[in-house]
């Protein structure tokens, strides 16, 4: 292995990147776009749920209940429905997500027997929004219920002791405001690394195959290991620059708390980047066509990074065998690390296990990539 040859290859690759300003622009725009799209577009917080009502009773009590829904910022009152088909149509075409039906004997039953029911119809298509919306509706109705309770006891001359027998006091750690942005944004660094690391590399090397310049390179005295390092080094630097852009945007633009140390982030990002670069390199050697390489790289890096890393979907909720598969996904360790470094402020000591896995992964994949090229030489 000669440093001079590595430097020569790196120089050539860097020049190629610089002389094609469009691809450089793209490499730098990817983190910007990912950050802004995900930072603004991804919001799992539910607010302003379109709501329609069907009040069969139209009494003072029923109107009071509906006013509470109108006053809540979680709901957005749409027009009142006249009958059931009306509600069905509204739920069908999506103009409302939740319908409240108050029965005709609502306040009468409340006076006579003390208990009454309100029917809440929820569009369950988007199951996540539906369950959150139902929770909000439940709390509005519960609030109304306790106030009615107090009123009825006071009317009878009783003394109200308590209206909420058990009070849940929640304390939220790490992401105190429960902002979904704080949970999504750190993971984007992993996505960007997967795109820049694996996709761009796989394309550039496959291009050499397609154009025949790879054979030219092979005829030089360069060794496989030198070629790999020389080719990947410039992209490693581009990847780190992208990570820096992501970090700056996350902290200064989106105000995501960063509680860990830069050293931990730098170490783990470098490891993950090596994994991604080597996968991209390996794929492009195995496939040798740009379309194919980009498709396979997408399949083995982007997709698992999005779906199997805990980036948006919690791993603990997946079926057992899928959970088993996630242990093979390097992004799983990196996303865990990212979230912990950003939100929990964990250091290298607490994260020893995922860092170790990531390091093992990096060593394994680079070994594989280096060997793969050697085979194709003979």
């Amino acid at each position: 292995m000669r440093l001079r040859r590595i430097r020569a290859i790196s120089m050539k690759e860097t020049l190629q990147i610089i002389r094609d300003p469009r691809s450089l622009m793209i490499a730098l725009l990817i983190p910007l776009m990912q950050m802004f799209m995900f930072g603004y577009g991804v919001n799992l917080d539910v607010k302003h749920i379109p709501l329609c009502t069907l009040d069969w009773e139209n009494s003072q009590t029923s109107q009071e209940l509906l006013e509470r829904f109108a006053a809540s910022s979680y709901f957005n009152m749409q027009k009142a429905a006249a009958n059931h088909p009306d509600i069905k149509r509204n739920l069908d075409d999506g103009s409302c997500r939740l319908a409240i039906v108050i029965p005709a004997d609502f306040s009468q039953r409340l006076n006579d027997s003390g208990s009454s029911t309100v029917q809440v119809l929820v569009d369950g298509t988007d199951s996540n929004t539906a369950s959150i919306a139902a929770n909000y509706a439940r709390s509005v109705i519960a609030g109304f219920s306790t106030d009615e309770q107090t009123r009825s006891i006071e009317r009878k001359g009783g003394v109200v002791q308590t209206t909420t027998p058990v009070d849940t006091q929640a304390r939220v750690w790490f992401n105190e405001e429960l902002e979904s942005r704080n949970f999504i944004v750190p993971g984007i660094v992993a996505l960007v690394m997967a795109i820049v690391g694996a996709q761009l590399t796989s394309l550039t090397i496959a291009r050499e195959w397609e154009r025949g310049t790879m054979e030219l390179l092979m005829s030089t005295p360069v060794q496989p290991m030198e070629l790999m390092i020389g080719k990947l080094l410039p992209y490693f630097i581009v990847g780190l620059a992208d990570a820096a852009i992501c970090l700056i945007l996350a902290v200064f633009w989106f105000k995501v708390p960063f509680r860990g140390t830069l050293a931990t982030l730098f170490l783990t990002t470098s490891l993950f980047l090596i994994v991604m670069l080597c996968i991209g390199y390996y794929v492009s050697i195995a496939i040798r066509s740009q379309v194919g390489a980009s498709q396979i790289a997408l399949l083995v890096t982007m997709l698992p990074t999005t779906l199997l890393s805990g980036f948006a979907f919690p791993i603990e909720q997946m079926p057992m065998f899928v959970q088993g598969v996630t242990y093979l996904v390097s992004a799983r360790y990196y996303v865990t690390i990212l979230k912990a470094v950003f939100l929990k402020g964990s250091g290298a000591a607490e994260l020893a296990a995922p860092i170790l896995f990531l390091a093992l992964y990096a060593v394994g994949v680079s070994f594989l990539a280096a060997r793969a090229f050697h085979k194709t030489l003979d």
Partner: protein
Amino acid sequence: MFRRIFELLVKELLQLKRDKSARFRMLIPPIVQMMLFGYAATFEIFNVSTAILDQDHSQESRALVSAFASSKRFDVTKQASNLNEAKAAVEESRAQLAIIVPPGFAELLRKGQTAPIQVLVDGTNSNSALIALGYVGQIAAAFGQTHALDLAQRTGRLHGRPMVNVAMVERYWYNPNLNSRWFFVPGVIGTLTLITIVNLTAFAIVREREVGTLEQILVTPIKPFEFIIGKTLPFFFIGLIQVILVAAVGTIWFEVPFEGNPLVLLLGTCLFLLSTLAIGLLISTLCKTQQQAFASNFFVLNPMFILSGFSFPIASMPEALQWLTYLDPLRYFLVIVRGTYIKGIGIDVLWPQMLALLILGMSLLVAAMLRFHKSLD
């Protein structure tokens, strides 16, 4: 004219037939993605790992703890013996949640006063945390209500009259068990079609341009218009086959019910394919190399994916982004797929989406054709 288009079609199909790896890549990635999304994409919350600290050791506190333990939402993984243990469990991610019943809980309850319980939550995943907190509140409130009712009856505070209570009876339409798979699996059909078709179309034309065969084809008597049709028609059929394939996997493997009319979905798919082909074509006219095509695809497809409402509700986006979603064909197609799949609605409800797809597809196609002519000069 038809003969020339037919000839080109034959050439394309032959090319496809001889390219084994291309066929493989057309078939396997969609199925893998479908499997991944079907199994991995879920926002449901079950068996949240929970640490419990009962500092009261009373009959009431034990009853409350068992109410949590018997719920399928919570999985008590740790019985903490002091506060530090409970905190450490959350801090070290061994539990997502710690429920603490403080001393004096039962006494307050018996006196008819408000008895607090404390919940520590790991908020890292804000969505799971929020849903889990909702369940904690529900279970605690139900427990409290039962207890208060019991107490009131025993002490005779209500003078034989039951306590006033308004109950909520909820019913989830279309997806009664709130299975998130029912939400994601139909969505994958749209997303996959978009990605595959735009990629295939853009790359196919750019490759001809890059390799130089595009010029060869254009010196034949074929007209650009015929070239476009002959070139995109195979992808149209590939798109249709893919939708059928993926929908079959969704219905048979993942058992997502198909409530609506398959013909409505077919019509929607054709309209949607119009847009995807046009986008692929448009990208191909703007790019000289496959690498550029890849990058452009990425910059176009990624926002379309996020803005479509595939997994992130459009209503929660900032206003400006919400307006942008109207330009996203996937947005309309997802309403059609989910509508026909889960809601079982027909054209009478879905016509605005169909119309939007038609208009979008047509304008994109015209733009692509104009650009294509220009890019040849």
